[in-house]
């Protein structure tokens, strides 16, 4: 039976359970003499009975689903070993063909040997499927019957129900943890496989990056080089340019908006900055690659400079503009958290507004601003689309902003898009880069969030 149909059946059983339990309790309540003893609405008994039949069956179904595929694979392998069929080829690929054959034509198109395996596969699949259905349905039916017999007016139905819901809510909250764990494990696992092939030191400190391997051994570049330093330098360079643009502009606009601007100016300028933040990065990338980069190139050439058509400057500049709203909204929060008394004290002593800002507000808000800048840096390092579209693929080790550089994110995208086998060092390298990226941004974020929180506490 299909999974969707099975779930549907389980839901019907649960609904049946709900109505029966509610009916049972309602009747019991009607027969009860002391009405004041009635504390719980009948529907809660229904809920409890329904969940009681549904949840265990669902959990069992999930577990069976997960173990089904490895079981079928092992059965097929042992069958193939027993019948002396050629099992030297990659089992996954082999099984994919067989699994893919869902129409009679496709089955007919399989090779003779595969047809035999297909028959066996089909048998195993049918039996496992039937067993799963039988187990899950019998659990559900047993629980329905048992639950309906056990439930009575003394069951603390509402409390039980609320405990279950609270558990579900907690489960939802801990998905954040599961996501982090998932990220850490997925990048860590693949990275360790990569570092098994390429020593970690030559990855971290090597200065040559050319992940493409030639097809024949005697060609140029027959062995790939995985020295990530050019990528780290390129990422730093572009992020640095971006921060050079965004920090002064973002900070100054935050200062103007929070300290000088009239309400009307604020009500116009703030939404405009928010629009800037809401534009998808792919749009910035398009703009950087097709408008800003040619402009910078033309401008540079008119001054006699040679500018690469995919210069770091163009990508960094546009990225900087993109981060402005981020910096400005963070600085805005931080500045408005500075107590009014500090401002009034300074102004009262005769300082001008700019003197107050530079000598009192900014020093007072400095930790928060630094935290904001760190968050912006982590944004810039992790930004992908702008650099993919506007920065190059050439792994040049240079700090000249007019040349083309490549970044960690660009390389991850190039290594992982397109069809390639999953086990080559090339694709695994992307995960190693991903690990670097995750760790770097994690450290920046943790420091920044810590600094910002400490700063807030200082004035609370």
């Amino acid at each position: 039976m299909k999974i969707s149909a099975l779930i549907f059946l389980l839901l019907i059983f649960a609904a049946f359970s709900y109505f029966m339990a509610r009916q049972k309790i309602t009747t019991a309540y009607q027969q009860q003499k002391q009405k004041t003893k009635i504390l719980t609405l009948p529907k809660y008994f229904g809920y409890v009975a329904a969940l009681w039949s549904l949840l265990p069956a669902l959990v069992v179904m999930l577990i069976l689903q997960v173990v089904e595929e490895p079981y079928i694979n092992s059965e097929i392998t042992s069958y193939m070993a027993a019948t002396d069929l050629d099992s030297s080829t990659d089992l996954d690929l082999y099984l994919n063909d067989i699994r893919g054959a869902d129409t009679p034509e496709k089955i007919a198109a399989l090779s003779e040997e595969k047809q035999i395996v297909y028959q066996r596969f089909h048998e195993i699949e049918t039996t496992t499927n039937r067993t799963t259905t039988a187990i899950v349905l019998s659990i559900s039916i047993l629980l329905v019957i048992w639950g309906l017999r056990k439930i009575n007016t003394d069951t603390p139905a509402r409390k039980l129900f609320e405990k279950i819901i609270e558990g579900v809510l907690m489960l939802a909250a801990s998905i954040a943890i599961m996501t982090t764990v998932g990220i850490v494990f997925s990048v860590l696992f693949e990275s360790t496989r990569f570092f098994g092939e390429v020593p970690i030191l030559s990855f971290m400190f090597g200065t040559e990056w050319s992940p493409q391997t030639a097809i024949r051994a005697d060609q140029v570049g027959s062995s790939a080089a995985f020295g990530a330093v050019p990528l780290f330098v390129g990422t730093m360079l572009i992020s640095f340019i971006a921060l050079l643009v965004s920090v002064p502009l973002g900070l100054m606009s935050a200062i103007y908006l929070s300290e000088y601007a009239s309400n009307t100016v604020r009500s116009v300028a703030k939404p405009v900055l928010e629009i800037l933040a809401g534009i998808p990065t792919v749009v910035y990338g398009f703009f950087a690659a097709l408008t800003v980069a040619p402009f910078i190139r033309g401008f540079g050439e008119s001054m006699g400079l040679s500018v690469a058509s995919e210069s770091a400057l163009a990508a960094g500049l546009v990225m900087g503009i993109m981060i402005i709203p981020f910096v400005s909204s963070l600085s805005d929060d931080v500045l408005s958290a500075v107590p009014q008394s500090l401002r009034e004290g300074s102004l009262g002593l005769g300082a001008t507004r700019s003197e107050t800002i530079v000598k009192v507000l900014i020093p007072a808000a400095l930790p928060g601003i630094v935290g904001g800048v760190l968050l912006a840096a982590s944004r810039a390092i992790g930004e992908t689309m702008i650099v993919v579209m506007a920065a190059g693929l050439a792994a040049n080790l240079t700090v000249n902003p007019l040349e083309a550089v490549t970044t960690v994110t660009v390389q991850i995208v190039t290594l992982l898009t397109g069809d390639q086998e999953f086990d080559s060092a090339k694709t695994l390298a992307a995960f190693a880069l991903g690990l670097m990226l995750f760790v770097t941004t994690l450290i920046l974020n943790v420091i920044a969030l810590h600094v910002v929180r400490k700063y807030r506490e200082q004035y609370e």
Partner: protein
Amino acid sequence: MNNTDLVKQGLKKRYLKELIFKSMGIFSIVIAILFLLMLLTDITIKALPAFSQTKIELEVQIDADRLNIEANSPNEVLMAADFRLVIRDALLKRFPEVKSRKDKRELYSLTSMGAEYQLRDMVIDDPNLLGQTLKVKFMADDDVDAVIKGSIDRSLPESDRRVKDQKLSWITALESNGQISSGFNWHFFSSGDSREPEMAGIKGAILGSLYTLLVTLALSFPVAVSAAIYLEEFAPKNRFIDFIEININNLAAVPSIVFGLLGLAVFINFFSLPRSAPVVGGIVLSLMTLPTIIIASRSAIKAVPPSLREAALGLGASKMQSVFHHVLPAALPGILTGTIIGMAQALGETAPLLMIGMVAFIVDIPQSVVDPSTVLPIQVFLWADSPERGFLEKTSAAIMVLLFFLIAMNAIAIYLRKKFEKKW
């Protein structure tokens, strides 16, 4: 000299500094606004040509013998017939002077590759057309389109021009004869991707985005709201809860591409879910938008005054009842606003979807959440990479469509906030 004079002496300089400081602030904001305007006008100007499509009117004789079909042929035969033949005949009839093989090939490229399908669909719709001679407006090739729209300059010397003199003379002849017209490009909104710029449409990407967002919404909204309720209302103060909070704040700042790596390693390689499918994209994006929605929902729940909770509790409601019957409805507008903003963020996201293979070239329009498809931002990315000139305007047009959806979503969010916001 007393102190007052000293202060007065420095005053001018200090006021000047004040002025400079203030104008630096204005300058920063003006730069940001200017950049935004530049970006929007640049894209709009580039996009406008994409919304009209040049057509060439030709007199075609739909000759059944030439096509090797009959009026009552089944659809498969009609589908297989080579309608190019009659269109080519029509072109040759219009320009009988063209003789050499090379010139003929040049001539045939006036109409789009899609012209034959256009004619085929017409015949399938109405088999009576067979044997008739009628005037049909065919979609023009992207080069012709570019000449008519003026993006290829006719006054350039031939060697610098993509469209050569011969073809240009045909175009001019057609034009002076009134056989060239242009109209709104409906095709752009009603078809999938294509290698030919004039045939490429955005419907596949829009539907792909829609499916992806539906999955994202279905997963992230319930989970995020539950998490927010738990953290605001039920969570005890302990290490575990602190850890959850640190995680949520951190996830909000993790680069989106890392979520793509997670999706690739876990959902595609481990759980072997289909590649390029909106369902995987939706799962990845929902993990990515969870922190945004959780943080917004928490502040909405926090803003509900405690008196409401206490009143409910005082009347005998349980904690759960007070939350679900009173706090949650009061916080819902804020939660919805946060959700829409999270969805808008998900709509514009590109990088994680590249990782899970939604970057493939897909012509078919997706019919469900497991069909391979692409999404709007990725369509932009793909077209931006294409070398043909015609794709430049398509890219800009796709960006405009994307921005339109984003603006619409944000407008709804602002409207909801304005309409239901309560000052307690």
